[in-house]
């Protein structure tokens, strides 16, 4: 073959190789060559009940009710974070009380875990979103473990849960809470916990690992699961609507500061008692609105949306939750016609 022609062929091969390499690198980065990689799509799909997800709804914590109110900061937390909503004052809040179920029509007494989503906005534009639940520790120590739990709990294999529990000894503490903790018949009586650790940065730049809780002002009244079931499928929403209509309901925001030896990357490990706590202020819930008409419906309570002065720690969950919540948000907004904006239009 004459020289110039071979060189043209060689050049074309080189160009094809460059393009192929580009496509391959892109496909690898996108995860197409590694089907075992845990993605938000897989995680969110695993949450769906056997009949498929409820279109237009959150893929988890699908049953909920909106609230608005204020966060009344007392200024104490400014000692550990420069976040603007810790300066003494009142800040507007949009939130959502909810149940950890992918079914928006689940009966309240069938759902063990309750949650709260809160968005606090500061006048300087800083926004703090959080999503807390009521168990004292999380069920699993890694996002992969959470996926394994979802797989096991929906598996047709009767041995699947046993296998999961054997492989995940950290599940025991959550399991103990889920089976033994008393029920209450009101959202207002629930203490909610961040479980995940975040890093607070104070005015001098010093960092503190923190978990936080919302402790109810209402005194919890235990009720048996059987008596709770008699109150009806939607009792929690009816109860909180009535309570808030008669007077605002309050929770104290309590920050717990880790000792240097405390684990921050594992939400199944409670920090030992006696840690420094700071009461940062009070969440005041002033108005309840149904989700379809309410201001919380289209808010993604992504726990990595944080003000200056708070950032994620080495806890792997906030990132995994952010990715999964974004996926859920993208899905449900594209299905908005299945869950119309107002309650009136949702009911034919």
């Amino acid at each position, binding site marked *: 073959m004459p020289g110039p022609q071979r060189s043209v062929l060689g*050049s074309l091969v080189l*160009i094809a190789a460059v393009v192929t390499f580009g496509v391959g690198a892109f496909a690898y*980065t996108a995860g197409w060559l590694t089907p075992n990689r845990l993605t938000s799509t897989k995680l969110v799909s695993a949450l769906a009940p056997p009949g498929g997800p409820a279109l237009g709804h959150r893929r988890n914590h699908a049953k909920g009710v909106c609230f608005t109110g204020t966060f009344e900061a007392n200024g104490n937390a400014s000692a550990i974070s420069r976040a603007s909503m810790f300066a003494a004052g009142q800040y507007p809040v949009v939130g959502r009380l909810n149940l950890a179920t992918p079914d928006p029509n689940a009966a309240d007494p069938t759902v063990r875990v309750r949650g709260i989503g809160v968005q606090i906005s500061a006048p300087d534009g800083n926004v703090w979103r959080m999503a807390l639940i009521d168990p004292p520790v999380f069920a699993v120590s890694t996002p992969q473990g959470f996926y394994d739990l979802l797989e096991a709990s929906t598996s047709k294999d009767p041995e699947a849960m046993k296998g999961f529990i054997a492989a995940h000894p950290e599940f025991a503490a959550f399991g103990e809470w889920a089976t033994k903790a008393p029920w209450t018949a009101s959202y207002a009586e629930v203490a909610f916990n961040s479980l995940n650790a975040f890093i607070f940065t104070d005015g001098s730049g010093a960092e503190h690992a923190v978990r936080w809780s919302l402790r109810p002002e209402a005194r919890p009244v235990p009720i048996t699961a059987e008596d709770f079931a008699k109150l009806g499928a939607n009792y929690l929403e009816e109860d909180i609507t009535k309570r808030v209509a008669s007077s605002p309901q309050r929770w104290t925001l309590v920050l717990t500061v880790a000792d240097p030896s405390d684990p921050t990357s594992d939400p199944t490990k409670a920090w030992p008692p006696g840690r420094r706590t700071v009461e940062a202020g009070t969440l005041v819930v002033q108005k309840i609105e149904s989700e379809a008409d309410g201001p919380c419906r*289209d808010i993604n309570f992504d726990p990595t949306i944080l003000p200056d002065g708070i950032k994620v720690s080495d806890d792997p969950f906030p990132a995994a939750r952010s990715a*999964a919540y974004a996926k859920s948000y993208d899905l449900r907004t*594209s299905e908005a016609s299945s869950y119309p904006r107002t309650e009136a239009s949702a009911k034919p």
Partner: protein
Amino acid sequence: MTDASTKTRFTTVQRVLHWLMAIGILAMLFIGVGMVSTIGRQYVPLLLTHKTLGIAILVLALVRLVVRFISGTPPLPADLPEPMKLAAHLSHLGLYALMIGMPLIGWAMLSAAAYPIVLYGGIRLPPILPQSDTMHALLWSAHYYLAFAFFALVLMHLAAALFHGLVRRDGVLETMLPGK
């Protein structure tokens, strides 16, 4: 004004902008597909980088467009077949549209989702759209599919540049390479 007919290279400013943006855009596309396929801890910094770099590309693209109007471009070789000339013009139009359009779509998409838009260093951008499910869903799809079109166009651009440099040897590649 430079006389376009005698111009054999892009100006130094144009070449610096081109290569800076080449790195930025490739990084951007890889960060984009990488972050949506991971739930790892890197998701949070990748998302922050994606937003910050996106706005940087938007600003650079607008600067570049202005520079292009002022400095012009070297002419394509006179013997280049008309279909290839047309392809060259259309692909550049597409690249500019995406360099400017993708960051704007991303920004609008985050606005429609009512996410606070915070860049590296705590820089906050105002929303450019009110909250809207429909707009979010539309913009999300546009951002997603156009990203693949963008990557395909970048690869075509790269292949064409190499074709000019290695096969046709017509001086087109050299207009963007370092040198006098």
